[in-house]
């Protein structure tokens, strides 16, 4: 919400929006209480997390494979963890307060090396 909103005389007729998909700039990641953490070593690339993610927050590389999680938009609902079919699960939920200040690599090591 950092950019300036339009003035009344700049608004297009019919409240049209010229820039489709501009809600991307609004980050909903701050809503999150818990965050999913991904373990690429056990991931079987089934993409179920991608197809069930309500917030399009599963990052996809150029081959259509999962490559991480978009923490700017992930609301932390946990559907991806619930639906992950690999054994052991390749995704797990962690409290945001527990991961504060740690890098993604550190968190991964802590959770999945046990």
């Amino acid at each position, binding site marked *: 919400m950092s950019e300036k909103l339009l003035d009344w005389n700049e608004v297009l007729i019919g409240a049209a929006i010229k820039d*489709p998909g501009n*809600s991307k700039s609004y980050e*909903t990641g701050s809503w999150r209480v818990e965050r999913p953490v991904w373990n690429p070593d056990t991931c079987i690339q089934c993409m179920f997390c*991608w197809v069930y993610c*309500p917030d399009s927050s599963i990052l996809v590389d150029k081959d259509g494979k999962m490559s991480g999680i978009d923490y700017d938009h992930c609301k932390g609902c946990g559907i991806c*963890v619930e639906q992950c079919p690999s054994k052991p699960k390749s995704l797990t939920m962690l409290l945001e307060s527990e991961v504060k200040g740690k890098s993604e690599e550190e968190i991964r090591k802590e959770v999945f090396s046990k």
Partner: protein
Amino acid sequence: MALLNELAKKKEGLVNGHRLCPGCTHSVIMRQVLAAADTDKYEIVAAAATGCFEVSTGLYPYTSWNMSWIHNAFENAASTISGVEAMYKVWKKKGKTNKDIRFIAVASDGGTYDIGLQALSGAIERGHQFLYVCNDNNAYQNTGNQRSSATPFGANTTTSPNGTIKHGKEQPKKDIMSVLEGHHMQYIAQASPSNWRDLMDKVKKALDVNGPTYINVIEPCTTGWGFPAQDAIKIAQLAVDTCVWPIYEVVEGKVIINYKPKNKLPVEDYLKPQKRFAHLFKKGNEHLIEEYQKQVDRHWEWLLKREEAGIGY
């Protein structure tokens, strides 16, 4: 149907940054619908009725729709999209465009079963080419869980509350599929986001029909139904496995059941995790669950018989 990896590479029709609740399946359904559309062959133009989905994806000056999208009012998603479609036909005739465009209207149960029914009925009767997707969340969830005609029997809502004399909604859910069958459309289907492949196949099939089509999709609502956010897809799967939400299609009047659960679960399994049905499990209310089961069984057997008969029009 392409593999998920193939679909994941495509441009997303609905992007993130929308303000739906965490764990809301509205966007799951719409992402699956738009991923299924063969956007190499044709473009999609969508219209939405007022509802949870519209207010959270079209919050001015933002839009989560990465495509052409129009919103008009609560009751007229179907007539809005038919107007757009009529204009497209004229443009094509006059040579103003040579694009292949397909149309999708999205609404929730309030905008379909109740308020939008006459606009939908009219648009279907006029025979416009559009796919109508109803995300059925069983009540007016946008304004805080008021009863609609899609609310199932026994559900506790703010306008059909559980008390000492009455126990949730007294009437059964409206069978919208049968209502729409009366329009003799070419393709009507019921689907669930938990069975994504089935839903995507149906969308693909529906978009290729040159005329009105309808898909009814269950949309578990974490706040209104009262279950933890991560269980949304699980609840949809339970609805399918208990036959509360049968997955089937009606192709020119002929019923085809796409998924028959190997062992049909009792409705308790579906009702138990949801807070809106908590009062049914109190002592003395057993007859309500029996009644619920009876309604579900009756509808399921009726469908099985219709499939067996195989009669179309």
